[in-house]
């Protein structure tokens, strides 16, 4: 067992993937000597060289576009987008090319490209550094979209993402980068496939559904609720596309109440899909509508206000209360 932070777990996972397969490349802005602004690629260029850990020109469309070309040549590029808010210059390459080229080719082409995106707020950053753009990608057919929430998953999921023959948008909860856990890197949890979620805390009265940074928040909320005598089940989705529908529906059928939590704006956010799908499949099991807790329908605010924008324990529990109030 080794104690690893989430960022170090990703680093070790990538290192393992690079050792296992010489076709795996890392590319992005400042991923080389600097090791990325969050040090997630720290030391990899030193050990694998400049041909496998590529500091690119400063242009996100170029990063994804050339990664597609490298994948066409048989490589498995892992691209880093420096911050969530800077993925948009690459939107065209991701949405019209990366997602659609395999189908365009009738399966002749596989694009094993991973797009790593540090995401979410809570670190006191300036504008464009705290976004949660997952819904733009869950709506884009052809992509897999996953989010890790803890070091152990980070270590395994990044390797699974790299091994996947599909393009994977890989969200990393940046405010959890420094959280540590004791990991058995020999026993890497491959038994949970990349597209499966996990019940991270069992409960009976209501279900909290979350992913990425909000999993911890939900676990805290569930703990607090326990003192009030409420048993909350917490699901870490891990995969947003595809969704682990059986896991979610099974929980909802047991509890009858659901609160979905994410940082992105609620309006047209991924929580809408969850709420709609849960309601379609569990209509008669629901004691209350699926409630959503998330960002407001505003741009991410200046950091002095982010604690108000970001769902926290209280807002989650408030929603649970409202659910019970139905």
């Amino acid at each position: 067992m080794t104690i690893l932070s989430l960022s170090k777990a990703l680093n070790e996972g990538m290192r393992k993937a690079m050792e296992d397969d010489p076709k795996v490349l890392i590319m992005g802005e400042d991923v080389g000597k600097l090791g990325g602004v969050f040090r997630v690629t720290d030391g990899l260029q030193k050990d694998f060289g400049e041909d496998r850990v590529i500091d690119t020109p400063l242009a996100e469309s170029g990063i994804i576009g050339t990664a597609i070309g490298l994948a066409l040549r048989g490589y498995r590029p892992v691209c880093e987008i420096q911050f969530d808010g800077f993925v948009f210059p690459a939107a065209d390459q991701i949405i019209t090319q990366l997602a659609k080229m395999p189908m365009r080719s009738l399966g002749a082409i596989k694009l094993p490209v991973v797009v790593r995106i540090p995401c979410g707020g809570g670190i006191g950053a300036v504008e464009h550094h705290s976004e949660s753009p997952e819904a733009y990608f869950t709506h884009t057919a052809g992509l897999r979209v996953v989010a890790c929430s803890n070091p152990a998953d980070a270590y395994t999921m990044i390797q699974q993402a790299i091994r996947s023959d599909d393009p994977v948008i890989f969200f990393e909860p940046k405010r959890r980068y420094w959280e540590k856990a004791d990991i058995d890197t020999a026993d890497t949890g491959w038994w949970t496939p990349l597209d499966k979620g996990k019940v991270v805390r069992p409960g009976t009265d209501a279900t909290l559904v979350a992913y990425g940074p909000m999993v911890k928040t939900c676990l805290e909320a569930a703990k607090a609720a326990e003192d009030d005598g409420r048993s909350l089940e917490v699901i870490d989705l891990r995969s947003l596309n595809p969704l682990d529908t059986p896991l979610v529906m099974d929980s909802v059928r047991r509890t009858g109440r659901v609160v979905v939590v994410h940082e992105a704006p609620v309006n047209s956010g991924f929580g809408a899909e969850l709420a709609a799908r849960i309601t379609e499949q569990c209509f008669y099991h629901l004691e209350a509508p699926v409630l959503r807790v998330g960002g407001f329908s505003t741009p991410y605010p200046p950091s002095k206000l982010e604690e108000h924008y970001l769902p926290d324990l209280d807002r989650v529990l408030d929603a649970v209360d409202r659910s019970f109030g139905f």
Partner: protein
Amino acid sequence: MAIPPKLAPTAQEWHVTADASRGAAAPPELVQLLTPEGERVEHPDYDIDLKPEEVRSLYRDLVLVRRIDLEAVALQRQGELGIWASLLGQEAAQIGSGRALTDADMAFPTYREHGVAWCRDVDPVKLLGLFRGVNHGGWDPREHNFHLYTIVIGSQTLHAVGYAMGVQRDDAPSATIAYFGDGATSQGDVNESFIWASVFNAPIVFFCQNNQWAISEPLEKQTRIPLYRRASGFGFPGIRVDGNDVFACLAVTRQALKNAREGQGPTLIEAYTYRMGAHTTTDDPTRYRVASELEAWKLKDPIERVKSYLFKNELADQAFFDSVEAEAEQLGADLRRRCLAMPDPAPLDIFDHVYAEPHPLIDEERAQYAAYLEGFEQR
């Protein structure tokens, strides 16, 4: 360095028309080896020694791809294709550059590179799939080292550079060529691809077919200087070639590919040509361009000049021309027949190949839709 003095236009005059050479007169910097009249000319830096059978073979290519194109236009008119992007006028640019490629080289086309596809041995009927609406891309790019058609303007140039970076990493002796139009040069992606190529010294040739128009927009809407000069801003060579001269296109592209393979990095080739037809079959160019321009360019036809050359130099006789003509007719008829015989895709094909690995939502939707369709049949 001084800012070059320039007459200050009045505020009303800032619509710059920089390249007034679109008409008949050839711009000065053009590499040409065969005049419109079919005369061989020398060029200090480029020359090419073609055996008679090679010239005949190029001629055959030009005629056949024009025939394929004409047939596709006709098929569209008759409702057999939804749309078609004609290469008429651009045959020499495509055959010249396409024939410069070795088998190991990789090409990234737009949606108009039917001539290059021909050089890459893609069965012409496979080109029709996209335009007939039976698929989005009907051939295996790996089989032909010819990527799928790309519709989003310019995006393939980055794929090409990435591919070339892979070739570098493989230490393979091959080059990559990226095709795009004059309009595409305005896209961020194309300029980023220049930057990547130059910074990584990638083994790539950028082949821009400047056919003078991006749908209805003349070249002046994209640039105020000749396009080949764009390369100088990025630190690699740019060169303008007579895009209607198949010899010159072959010679210049061959050299650029060789340079790329030998580690000398990227080259931008601007093939100066003209889109003789509409942008696509749904376009109406009479709305935006004058007939005289077309007339001027007719005199520069890429096929006629090779024919003249073969004739004048007695490298081919009438029997040869007739046989090529007959072959073209045959090819056209064959293409038509095989187009009509193309099977329609099945409804449930919608769900195929979206992902390489199993995806439960796709499976669920496929099953639901299959059940839905069955419900209909049972009614």
